[in-house]
C-alpha cells in the first residue's frame, strides 16, 4: 500500500476509526451508506434540474428542425469531440481516485484527483475558446443573435451591417411628415464605398423636407456633423441624392460648384438644385439635370481616398417628428418583412476558423435561429457551471487528500464527489450528440 500510513487516522483496528465519523452514526459503514444514498438523491435532483432544458430542446427540435439543421453547423465538432474525450478521461481518473482512496494509495489518489481537475480545466478552456468565437461573431442567443458570417462563409445582413460585402451603409435618422400627416419611413441604403463618387439613391423622402444637417459616421472616427449654410429643401417627392466624393473637390461632379479654400473635411455642399428633377440616376444625367424631377443633391466630401467602413450619413430635417411608438405586433410583422437575413451577398471566401469542409452556399439562417443558441448556451452554460463547481469540490478534496484525511474506512467524500462528476460527464455525453452531431 503506497503511503497509506502517513497519518494517524488510517483507522484499522478495533474502535480506532477515522476521526471523521460523526457521532450520530453507529460506525463508518453507517455513515458511508447514508452518504451514498444522500448523493444518489442529489444526483436524481440534478437530472430533474437539467430536464427542463431537455424539454425545451426536444420541443424546439421537433417543431423547428430547419433551425437545428442550419444552426448546428456553426458549432465545431472537433472541439465538442475533444471535450467529450477529456471529460470521459476525467471520469476515469475520478473513478480511479475512489479506488485509490479505498485502497489507501495516497499518492495515486492525489495524482488522480489532480488529473481530474486538470481535465476539467481543459474542458473549460475549450469552452472558453468556443464561446469567445461565438461572442465575437455575434452568434448568440435570442435577441442578440446577429451573425455576420453564415456557416458556409457567406456574409450576412446584420443589424449593424445592412450591407455586408460593402463598406458602408447609410441611415437616415429622420422621419418626415407627409402632407396628409402620415409619417414617412426612415430610409436605408447600401453603397460600396470602395468605389468613390458613388451615387446613392434613396427613395421615399418627402417633399418639402428641409435638410439641415448631415451627420457622418465613419468607423474609427467620431460622428461629425456637417451643416449646410442654408437648409436644402427637397423639392422632389421621391428622391434625395447623396453623392460621396473622395476629395478631389469639384472633380467628377460635373457641375461647377463654388470653390472654397481648404474646406474642412468632411464637408457637405449642395451639389445642385436643378429646376427639373431627373429620372435617371447616373451622375452625369443628374448633373445635367436631365429628367423631369428636380433633385437635391448632397455632396459629402471627405478629405482622402481611403475607403471608410461603415460610413453612415444621416440627414436631419427641421422639426423632425419622433417615430411612432413601437408596436410589438407590427415589429414582429415588420421583422418578417425586413430583408434581414434574406439578402446574402455572393459567397465570399472568408477564411473562418471553424469551417474546414468546402464552402457551401447555405443561404441565410431561418427565422428565429437564435433559439437554437438560446438552448445551446443554456445547456452548455449550465453544464459549464456544474463543471466549475466540480473543480472547486475536487480542489477541496485534493487538499484533504494531501493532508491524509482519507482512509479505507472514510473515503465517502471522494466517492460522492466522483459520483457527482460522473453525472456531469453523463449529461455531456447526451449534450454532445444532441447539439453537435445533428444531421
Amino acid at each position, binding site marked *: 500500500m503506497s503511503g497509506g500510513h502517513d497519518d494517524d487516522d488510517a483507522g484499522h483496528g478495533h474502535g480506532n476509526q477515522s476521526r471523521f465519523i460523526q457521532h450520530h452514526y453507529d460506525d463508518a459503514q453507517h455513515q458511508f451508506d447514508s452518504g451514498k444514498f444522500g448523493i444518489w*438523491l442529489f444526483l*436524481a435532483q440534478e*437530472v430533474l434540474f437539467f430536464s427542463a432544458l431537455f424539454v425545451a430542446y426536444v420541443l424546439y427540435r*421537433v417543431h423547428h428542425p430547419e433551425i437545428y439543421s442550419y444552426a448546428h453547423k456553426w458549432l465545431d465538432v472537433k472541439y465538442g469531440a475533444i471535450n467529450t474525450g477529456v471529460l470521459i478521461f476525467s*471520469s476515469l481518473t475520478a473513478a480511479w481516485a475512489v*479506488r485509490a482512496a*479505498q485502497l489507501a494509495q495516497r499518492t495515486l489518489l492525489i495524482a488522480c484527483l489532480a488529473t481530474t481537475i486538470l481535465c476539467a480545466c481543459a474542458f473549460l478552456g475549450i469552452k472558453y475558446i468556443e464561446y469567445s468565437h461565438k461572442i465575437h461573431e455575434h452568434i448568440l442567443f435570442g435577441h442578440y443573435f446577429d451573425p455576420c458570417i453564415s456557416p458556409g462563409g457567406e456574409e450576412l445582413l446584420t443589424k449593424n451591417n445592412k450591407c455586408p460585402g460593402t463598406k458602408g451603409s447609410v441611415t437616415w435618422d429622420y422621419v418626415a411628415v407627409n402632407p396628409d400627416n402620415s409619417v414617412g419611413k426612415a430610409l436605408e441604403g447600401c453603397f460600396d464605398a470602395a468605389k468613390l463618387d458613388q451615387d446613392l439613391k434613396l427613395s421615399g423622402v418627402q417633399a418639402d423636407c428641409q435638410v439641415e444637417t448631415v451627420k457622418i459616421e465613419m468607423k474609427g472616427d467620431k460622428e461629425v456633423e456637417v451643416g449646410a449654410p442654408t437648409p436644402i429643401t427637397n423639392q422632389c417627392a421621391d428622391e434625395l441624392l447623396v453623392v460621396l466624393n473622395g476629395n478631389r473637390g469639384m472633380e467628377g461632379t460635373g457641375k461647377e460648384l463654388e470653390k472654397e479654400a481648404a474646406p474642412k473635411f468632411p464637408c457637405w455642399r449642395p451639389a445642385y438644385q436643378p429646376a427639373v428633377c431627373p429620372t435617371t440616376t447616373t451622375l452625369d444625367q443628374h448633373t445635367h439635370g436631365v429628367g423631369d424631377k428636380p433633385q437635391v443633391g448632397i455632396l459629402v466630401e471627405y478629405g482622402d481616398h481611403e475607403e471608410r467602413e461603415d460610413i453612415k450619413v444621416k440627414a436631419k430635417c427641421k422639426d423632425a417628428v419622433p417615430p411612432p411608438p413601437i408596436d410589438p405586433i407590427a415589429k414582429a410583422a415588420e421583422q418578417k418583412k425586413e430583408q434581414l437575413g434574406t439578402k446574402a451577398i455572393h459567397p465570399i471566401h472568408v477564411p473562418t476558423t471553424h469551417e474546414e469542409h468546402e464552402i457551401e452556399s447555405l443561404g441565410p439562417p431561418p427565422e428565429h435561429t437564435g433559439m437554437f443558441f438560446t438552448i445551446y448556451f443554456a445547456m452548455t452554460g449550465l453544464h459549464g457551471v456544474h463543471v466549475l463547481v466540480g473543480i472547486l469540490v475536487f480542489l477541496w478534496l485534493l487538499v484533504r487528500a494531501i493532508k491524509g484525511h482519507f482512509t*479505507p474506512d472514510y473515503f465517502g467524500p471522494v466517492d460522492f464527489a466522483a459520483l457527482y462528476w*460522473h453525472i456531469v460527464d453523463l449529461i455531456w455525453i447526451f449534450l454532445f450528440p444532441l447539439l453537435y*452531431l445533428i444531421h
Partner: protein
Amino acid sequence: MADHAEHHDDHDHGDAHGDAHGISHVATIKTLVGTGGTLLFLTVVTVLATKIDFGANINLAIAMVIAVTKATLVVLFFMHLRYDRLFHTVVFVSAICAASLFVGFTLMDSSQYQHTNIWHPSEPPAAPVGPRPTG
C-alpha cells in the same frame, strides 16, 4: 460498534473484487480502464457515424443509441451501480422516468398545436369561409 477492521488487510491489494467485508466494492483496474476505453471508442464511432447519411431520423436514433450505451456504461461501472444496492438504481431510474414524463407529456401537448395566424390590427385576416372547424 460494528466491527470490520480485521478484514481490511486481506482485500486491499490491487485486485479487489466484490468486497463484502470492506465499506464498499472496489473497482478493478480492468473494469475502469476497460470502461474508459470503450467510452472513448464509442465517442469516435458516434462522430464517424454522422459522416454517413442514413436520413435525419436514423442518424438521430443511432446517436441516441450510442449515447444511451455510453451512459449505461458510466452509470453501471464508473458509478458502481452494478455493485450497489438496488434501491439506488430505483432512485436514479425514478428521476429518469420523471424527466421522461415531463418531456413526453409536454411534447404530446405541443405536437397538437395548430397554426397560429399572427396579424397586425391594420391588416386583419379575411373572414373564414366554410363550416366551423371542430379541431
